[in-house]
């Protein structure tokens, strides 16, 4: 990157412009004119207060107590209850955006062959299967416990996929994408089918149609568990596919 004079002048000009813009925005945030300002709404007045008290359908003053039943949503993890229940459509789209990215990566890398390769050491080669076992178990636990503890389909799927990434590093990987592609399809169609079941059995797309349990129990969250398992399958296979597209030595099929 040759630092010629024009480039430096350009950098400084951009810096000055951005400083001016920042100053203006700072003044806007501190203006005393009437009207709502940044952070002027306490959490009790935001929509998310209803998610915290699980009282979207019936406004009550009842608080969420561990181990009790009778709430409109059963997840103990409130973030999960938003991600997979209250705003589940966002999550469907989130899955789709990863799906689009995967499709884009596979589409643009089609028919490419990698040229270089360096052998991994013996320690890496023997160590990685053992590590992968733990990685996979951790990932599956993160997926299954998503409604009780921090985690869920996305980080869990990513952790499972990172195991595959590790094995790409160790072995000269002759990719067999078929399994991942089929898993991807199963995950995607599963999410749509769950959504449509909500539409046909209840009133709206992606509505919960399963019984809820006590807060903190394993089978407490209705469709959240199913959706998170499907998301985990889909996310892990998609991320693995992205990895394969980047490192694979054998890219014969032109998808």
């Amino acid at each position, binding site marked *: 990157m040759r630092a010629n004079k024009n480039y430096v002048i350009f950098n400084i000009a951009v810096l000055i412009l951005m400083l001016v813009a920042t100053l203006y925005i700072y003044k806007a945030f501190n203006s005393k004119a009437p009207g709502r300002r940044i952070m002027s709404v306490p959490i009790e007045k935001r929509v998310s207060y209803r998610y915290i008290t699980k009282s979207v359908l019936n406004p009550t003053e009842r608080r969420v107590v561990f181990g009790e039943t009778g709430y409109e949503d059963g997840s103990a993890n409130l973030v999960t209850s938003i991600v997979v229940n209250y705003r589940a459509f966002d999550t469907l789209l989130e899955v789709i955006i990863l799906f689009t990215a995967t499709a884009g990566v596979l589409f643009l890398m089609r*028919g490419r062959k990698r040229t270089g390769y360096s052998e991994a050491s013996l320690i890496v080669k023997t160590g990685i299967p053992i590590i992968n076992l733990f990685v996979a178990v951790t990932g599956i636990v993160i997926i299954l416990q998503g409604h009780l503890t921090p985690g869920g389909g996305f980080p869990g799927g990513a952790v499972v996929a990172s195991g595959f990434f590790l094995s790409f590093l160790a072995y000269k990987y002759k990719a067999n994408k078929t399994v991942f592609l089929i898993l991807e399809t199963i995950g995607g169609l599963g999410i749509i089918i769950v959504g449509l079941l909500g539409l046909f059995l209840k009133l709206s797309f992606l509505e919960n149609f399963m019984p809820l349990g006590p807060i903190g129990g394993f089978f407490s969250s209705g469709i959240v568990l199913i959706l998170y398992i499907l998301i985990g399958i889909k996310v892990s296979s998609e991320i693995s596919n992205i990895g394969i597209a980047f490192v694979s030595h054998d890219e014969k099929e032109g998808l």
Partner: protein
Amino acid sequence: MIYLVIVMTVIMIVGSIAILFQKTLRKAALISGIVSLMAAGFFVLMKAYDVAITEASIGAMLTTALYFFSIKRIEEIEKTGESETRDEGK
């Protein structure tokens, strides 16, 4: 607590400036991973544990891995002068 936050803030800001002015792409990608990890630490401080797990696994690890894979791939292309064009499956 506040001193910890100040130190982390300084590391993040210095790190992200270093990314922009780093000559080697590999080092830049590595620093980016560190900045992401620091961000995960910030999420823990802000009581966003879900976000912290996701940022650590996706933002810090997988993204950095992808950067390394693609830098490796670019170096391979540079070395072998691979310039074959594909014609199938347009």
